[in-house]
C-alpha cells in the first residue's frame, strides 16, 4: 500500500506530464497555424478561407471568391474595401490567369480574416459584431 507521500508524488508527476503533453500539442498546433514571416497573397487567402468556414459554417463547399466577396460585404465590417477588392482582383489574375501580381495588399486580406474571426458564427439570423 502506497504512503500518502508516494501517492502525492505520483499525482504530481502525472499532472506535470499531462500539462507538458497539452503544452506540446498546443505548440505544434500553433506552429501549423502560424503565418510565415512574410506571408504571400496565397498564404493570406488560405487564412481567409479558414476564417470564412468558421464564420459561415453552413456555407457549401462550392463557393467562389466572388460569391464570398458579396457575402462578406453585406456584413458591414469596418475595413478598407477598396484595398480588399483590389487585392482580390490581383489574386484572381494570378490564380487563374498566371499573371504575376505587384503590390498586393496582403494585410488587407489578413485584416478581413481577422475581422471575420472576431465576429460570432453566422447562420443566417445572428448579426456579426463590427470588429473594433
Amino acid at each position: 500500500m502506497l504512503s500518502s507521500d508516494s501517492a502525492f508524488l505520483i499525482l504530481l508527476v502525472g499532472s506535470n506530464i499531462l500539462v507538458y503533453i497539452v503544452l506540446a500539442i498546443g505548440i505544434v498546433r500553433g506552429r501549423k497555424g502560424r503565418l510565415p514571416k512574410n506571408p504571400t497573397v496565397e498564404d493570406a487567402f488560405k487564412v481567409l478561407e479558414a476564417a470564412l468556414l468558421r464564420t459561415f459554417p453552413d456555407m457549401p463547399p462550392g463557393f467562389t471568391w466572388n460569391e464570398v466577396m458579396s457575402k462578406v460585404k453585406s456584413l458591414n465590417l469596418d475595413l478598407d474595401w477598396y484595398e480588399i477588392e483590389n487585392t482580390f482582383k490581383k489574386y484572381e489574375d494570378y490564380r487563374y490567369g498566371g499573371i504575376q501580381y505587384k503590390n498586393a495588399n496582403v494585410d488587407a486580406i489578413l485584416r478581413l480574416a481577422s475581422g471575420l474571426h472576431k465576429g460570432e458564427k453566422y447562420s443566417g439570423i445572428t448579426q456579426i459584431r463590427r470588429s473594433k
Partner: protein
Amino acid sequence: MLARGHALLEGVPGTSKTLLAKSFARCLGLTFKRVQFTPDMLPLDIVGGFIFNMKTREFEFKEGPVFTNVLLADEINRAAPKVQSALLESMQELQVTVEGQTSKLPFPFMVIATQNPLDFEGVYPLPESEMDRFMLRIEFGYPRQEVEVQILKRNLTDLDLEEVRTVTDATALIEYFNMVDSVKVSDEILDYVSRLALETREDSRIGLGASPRAVVQLVQVSRANAFLDGRSYVIPDDIKKLANVALAHRMRLDRSATLKGLASDTTTIIQQVLNEVKPPR
C-alpha cells in the same frame, strides 16, 4: 455565337423568340433565314437538292435555307426525325452533302432552334444525342409585369426591325472568335469542370450525366463569357454561371429516382452539384 455553338430556345408561343433571332442576326450584320418545321417536311426542304433546269437541261443544286449565317429553326420538334437529323448533321459538320456533292455552309453559322415545352401531341421530341448538339438551352418565360407594360407601349406602333442597328459584321466576328480562342483556361479549371461532370455521372438520381462534348462546350462558352467580361482567363464563376444552361438539357433523370420523388429536374441537381464540388481557390 462567340463560342461557335448553337442554341435551343424553349418557351411558350408569343414570347418573342423569332423576333429575338431576327434582331440578333441583324445586329451582327449576318444573313438570316427562318424555317417553320412541320410534320410533312423533307430533308431537302432544309439542306436543298438537285432541281432540273429546263433551260440548260441539267440538274442544278439549289441551296436550302440552311445556307445562311443564322438559321431560325422554328418548332424543331414538329418535324420528323429524318428532317431533324438532316439539320443536326449540318450543325455538326458545317457542310451539306447531297447525292455525293458536298457544299460548305457560310461561316459563321449558327442555328437557333425553338420548341414549345408544353407541346405533347404531334411532336417528335429530340433524342438525347441530338439535344447534345445544342451548346445552350435558354428558357423563355413570361416577362415581368413592368417589362410587359413596356412591350405593350412599343407595340402601340408597328415594330420596325430597321431600327435595330448593325454593330458588327462577319469579318469582325471572326476576329472575335480568335480572341475567344486565346482566353486562358488553367489546368485547375479543367480539373474542376471534369469533377463536375463526374459528379453528374455518379449521382444516383441521374440516368444520363454530362457527356465529354458537354464539358468541352461548357468550357468554350465559359471562355466566351470571360471575353465578354473583359478577362483573358476563365474563373470558376464563369463555369458556375453557365453550367445549367449548358448541361441541364443534355442530362436525363433516372426513372426510378423520378418515380420515388427523389428528383424532379436536372436543373436542381446541377445546382446541388455546383454547391458541393469545391472549385479551385
